[in-house]
């Protein structure tokens, strides 16, 4: 009796999801209405969005003619910042559109190419982003921003050795703080976790330099990730809380902290941490995971809706997140394993290895586990959370 329950649940859930998806598609065409008063406020744009929109309107004409690359750069940067701070994909699309007149042109100015790469990286078009950065660095070897971006990308793809080279070049380029964090991160992924963690902790003991909050927040996040691989969950929480304090809009650290809390079963803390967070898929996923501890289905429905919306639109951004949802929420290990494998083809951070291992174990795929172990040993990756 007991053993049949999860399967029943899964079947019922699948049926429910199918029905819900059907009705949502139908509901997308609900009857429109005409408000009764012309004074009815339909939408309030927040200040930043409003400024960005009105600034860009004036600059767009200049940008469209390609006469003024600076105009394009200002608009694009503004929208990228807006997209990051509000975690809204839409603004990355706006930024890309501002750079559209320059797309696929060989004479694209370096500053614009970096922005294009930034957008591509955000949209998980890693190969494209790398190619753009290679091109920028070939033209301007002293570009610290491009070096740092490329190093981060290479780490994302599981190539810390390559990343280390760019990190070391940053030292020469007078970007010592970024260089230190970069070197520590790359080495930590390449057999020197404990030493790198000590180096980074020492560096971060100095007070935060004013105006550098975003760099410090990034560094705290990196330290938190290392502490996690060391299996020191108290330290992880301390680092991540520091990062969140510095950059309250930084969602990445917040999501990482949620995962720590979820592992400890502190569901209520997760719910309050995400209280005012934007309803992006990763946020909805964690809300739904937290809800498994509390009673309810609202968050699961929200996540399901966001998932089917993305499927309908053909968006496959958060494969790692999707695999986790399929495994832990929908209890579909086979599907989760397939998704984790697809994710592994584009992204190879420790977290990607962890979800692949988790799903491979769930379906009993020993070959994948063996390959993962081999990959880990070759890289000399240390990660307490990667159980093979």
């Amino acid at each position, binding site marked *: 009796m007991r053993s049949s329950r999860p399967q029943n649940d899964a079947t019922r859930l699948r049926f429910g999801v199918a029905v819900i998806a059907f009705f949502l598609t139908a509901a*997308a065409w609900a009857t429109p209405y005409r408000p009764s008063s012309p004074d009815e406020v339909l939408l309030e744009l927040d200040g930043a969005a409003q400024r960005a929109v009105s600034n860009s309107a004036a600059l767009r004409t200049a940008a469209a003619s390609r006469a003024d690359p600076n105009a394009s750069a200002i608009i694009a940067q503004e929208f990228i910042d807006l997209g990051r701070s509000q975690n809204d994909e839409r603004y990355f699309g706006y930024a890309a559109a501002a750079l559209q007149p320059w797309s696929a042109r060989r004479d694209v100015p370096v500053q614009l190419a970096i922005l294009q790469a930034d957008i591509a990286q955000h949209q998980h078009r890693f190969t494209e982003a790398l190619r753009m950065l290679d091109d920028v660095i070939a033209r301007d070897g002293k570009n610290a921003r491009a070096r740092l971006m490329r190093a981060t990308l290479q780490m994302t793809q599981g190539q810390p050795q390559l990343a280390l080279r760019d990190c070391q070049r940053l030292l020469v380029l007078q970007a010592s703080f970024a260089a230190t964090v970069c070197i520590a991160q790359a080495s930590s992924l390449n057999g020197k976790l404990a030493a790198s963690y000590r180096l980074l902790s020492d560096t971060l003991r100095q007070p935060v330099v004013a105006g550098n909050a975003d760099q410090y927040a990034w560094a705290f996040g990196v330290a938190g990730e290392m502490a996690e691989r060391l299996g020191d969950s108290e330290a992880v929480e301390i680092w991540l809380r520091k990062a969140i304090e510095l950059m309250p809009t930084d969602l990445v650290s917040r999501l990482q902290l949620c995962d720590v809390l979820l592992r400890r079963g502190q569901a209520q803390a997760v719910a309050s941490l995400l209280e005012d967070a934007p309803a992006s898929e990763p946020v909805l996923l964690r809300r739904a995971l937290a809800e498994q501890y509390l009673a309810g289905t609202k968050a699961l429905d929200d996540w399901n809706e966001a998932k089917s919306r993305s499927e309908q*639109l053909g968006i496959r951004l958060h494969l790692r997140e999707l695999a986790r949802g399929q495994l832990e929420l929908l209890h579909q290990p086979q599907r989760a394993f397939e998704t984790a494998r697809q994710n592994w083809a584009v992204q190879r951070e420790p977290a990607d290895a962890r979800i692949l291992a988790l799903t491979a174990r769930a379906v009993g795929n020993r070959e994948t586990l063996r390959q993962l172990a081999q990959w880990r040993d070759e890289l000399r990756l240390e990660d307490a959370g990667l159980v093979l």
Partner: protein
Amino acid sequence: MSGFFPKLFVILLSIVFIGVGTAAAHSVGTSYVRIEQSSDATISNVRVDLSLRDLAFAVGIDANRDGRITWGEVLQQSPSLVSYVTSNLTITRGERHCVLDAPTISIDRHSDGPYAVVILNMKCPTEGLLAVRSNMMFDIDAGHRSLLSVVGPVSQTLTVLTIDSRIWKQSAADSGRWSAFLRFVVQGVWHIWTGFDHLAFLLLLLLPLARPGALSASRSSGNIARAVFRVVTAFTAAHSITLACAAFDYIHLPSKWVESAIAVTIVITGIANFYERTARFGMAVAFGFGLIHGLGFASALADITSNATHRLLPLVGFNLGVEIGQLAVVAALFPILFLNRGSDVWRRHAVTACSLAITALGMAWLIQRVAS
């Protein structure tokens, strides 16, 4: 079966609540384009839903720049809104342009916030394949997705348009005669299965056939089969006649009266079923009332073929579908009739109970249809 409906009910309820409390999703910018076409696509309409957030940027809909978009501002900007749509959305048929006019503006809410809805009339050339090209929002948002649905009389396609693939073309297979014919067949089957009134009438005709009185001396399966065959044939012949007459405009009656008359046929046949002897007249009833049901099929067919240039193909397809749907019901019912042939319980209780229920339903339909 008993477990299914409570579950369905719970799911339906939960949908209602999801609809109320949906969180504003932070996804890529999205717009919706829906084209509804009649069978020959000459007169149709287009509905375009554009996010107010995107419109603030693309059309400058926040005229006083206070960051609050009001209904008044949307109305005030409606000329530029409409011209934005008509200049960025190109619909052609047979490579010639369709004309978009008579816009109306309203508001709708999707999961990521409020949208302006522009509904336009669309007049297209009569021949050729449909094509849609959208440039909407791609100039301001390179990641924008436009969800295009083209709804024909009996089919629906759903496509996502992006900056790199802005064009949708109807495939020749979609518009071919054979597939159009098949779609009418499906529509006919669908109509008989979901239009419960025809199904109810058919049940009333068939149920008493297993009564001893309805049959001559023997109670063999052959006899029942023959009785069913006669009734079904009479019903089919009758409704085919009136369906064809109405489809070719020889008869034209207001659908309200036709629908009400159908309800009357159900009530009368239902009451007649309380008397065992009436089953002898099954064939005559099936034919006479079948004429009225045919007119009902005709108005359903007219709904999906308004302004059609070809009439025979939809008519034959639809009628064929109706017969297939009807035969499926008969096939499902026949074993029950056969097993209960001449049974006392069947005669005294089952037929009466079913007829009573269906008669009540017919009464409800009648009141509803006359009152509407």
